[in-house]
């Protein structure tokens, strides 16, 4: 069993304190806002695909109001998927959601890497949503049209991905 006490370890605290890729993206092609109605937290994710290799994520930024778990998850997510193709990013989304809900066997081949620091969150059902909010929001952003998306239409907590 993963130890949830490991959650508040250096990596997560560091990403909370100094979030990577934090801010807005002026001309984002894809954008979504994720909202956790349980605590009022919200995260927005904006990204652009590469102009030549249109499958690759060239730029990604996030911002919002959230707890350390959510912010660190968003920060590490942006680091992990920058430069990846959309298909690879979707695989990572699925693996992360599976891990956060305790359904991923970390001993088998996967792409989780450093994100394994979030494995312990599955022991804290009320905090799972904090960790997965950025990933749901990323998924919603992939399916958004420019920045016209509204929260209601793209509520990431309702996006039909995985069982999370």
């Amino acid at each position, binding site marked *: 069993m993963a130890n*949830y006490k490991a959650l*508040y370890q250096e990596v997560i605290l560091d990403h909370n304190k100094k979030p990577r890729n934090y801010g807005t993206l002026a001309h984002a092609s894809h954008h979504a806002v994720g909202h956790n109605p349980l*605590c*009022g*937290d919200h995260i927005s994710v904006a990204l652009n695909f590469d102009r030549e290799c249109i499958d690759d994520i060239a730029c990604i930024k996030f911002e919002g*109001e959230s*707890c*350390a*778990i959510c912010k660190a998850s968003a920060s590490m997510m942006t680091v992990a998927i920058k430069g990846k193709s959309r298909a690879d990013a979707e695989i990572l989304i699925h693996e992360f959601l599976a891990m956060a809900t305790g359904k991923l066997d970390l001993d088998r081949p996967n792409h989780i890497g450093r994100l394994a620091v979030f494995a312990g969150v599955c022991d*804290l059902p009320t905090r799972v949503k904090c960790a997965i909010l950025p990933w749901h929001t990323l998924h919603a952003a992939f399916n958004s049209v420019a920045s016209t998306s509204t929260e209601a239409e793209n509520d990431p907590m309702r996006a039909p991905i995985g069982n999370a």
Partner: protein
Amino acid sequence: MNAVQTAPASRFAPVLLPAAPGVIATSKLPAKEPFDVERIRADFPILQLQIDGKPLVYLDNAASSQMPQQVIDRLVRYQTSEHANINRAVHYLSETATAEHEAARRKLQRFINAREEREVIFTSGTTDAINLVMHGYGRKFFKAGDEIILTTLEHHSNIVPWQMLAEETGAVIRVVPINDAGELLIDEFENLFNMRTKLVGVMHVSNALGTINPLKQMIAFAHAHGVRVLVDGAQAVPHLQVDVQDLDCDFYAFSGHKLCGPTGIGVLYGKAALLEKMQPFKGGGDMILSVTFEKTTYNTIPHKFEAGTPPIAAAIGLGAAVDYLSAIGMDAIAAHELNLLNYATAQMTRMPGVRIIGTAKNKASVISFTVDGVHPHDVGTLLNQEGVAVRTGHHCAQPVMARFKLPATSRASFAFYNTLAEVDALIDGIRNVQKVFA
């Protein structure tokens, strides 16, 4: 020979089984004097729990309080030797269950000093009680333009039903603002009254901030203007001696599970004359005198508002809970809790980076707080790692959070079984949070 369990000779004089073995001795009501918190704690089995090897420090009493063995035993006794449906059959168990259910009603009546027992309606909780008033009183008597005065402090359960009524009838909601301490602005409250004001909905004690509202003064003012007052007493009844006749409120709602009783049970007190004029909220069995397909005659109060088979065990358990609290004494409970509140407030006020939200002069034992640079959810999770249970979030009082421009707070709420040492554990826990996030 097992004489006790032999079938009774007469079916009308059955032998009652004893309560669960081994627990009878602990079931005595606590002695009134002096207040001995350690002896009281021994009545609460759950307080012996360890959370990850640390003793449980349960400071989420405003969300739900814990149950003493005396109430657990009463529930066991009811289910093992008294249960049947009530108000129906002529057999022994049904009559026993009915008698015990009505005895519980009288206990609740005495506990809040209602004039008559029929003024005590069992509901599923405070939310259900408020919805009963909305449907029974509001939907019958409100028309477009009528005004309801609520306060910024209200729990969502005393906001949303009235919004639903406003949507349906065209009634209008007015809101009493609060100051930076979390106290109602009484001048503003009085200024909201006009010819169309019909009802005031106000909480006795704020669940999010602990503020104790000046109810008597507010009710007297409302009555001087011919306006009815509904009080949400969910947070007051566990901590203060409540006297509905002294308050002179028209309705008073509260929940059993914040009162050392079971979940799924609560009370709506209402003045008999008002309850009689109201329409039923739910239709069904027990709330009728006669039914034909042409016409149904409703039962008298309180039964008019208690359709269907009620949570009988829960009501009887709640009766046992108020017996337990009364034996300790609500004044002794209030005094001990005030001591905890003052001790915690003094310590937290001195902590750099910790801010108490809600600093009313008259407060119940609730402390909402923020820790600079740390989200309340992180505070809650880290405190949990030390065994300390607090609530984090908006406390179902988003207008209060908006007033203080906060998305959420952490909240420690004390009960009479909490100790000064547990306050110390909370303070140490907050220091640990600050260390982790330094």
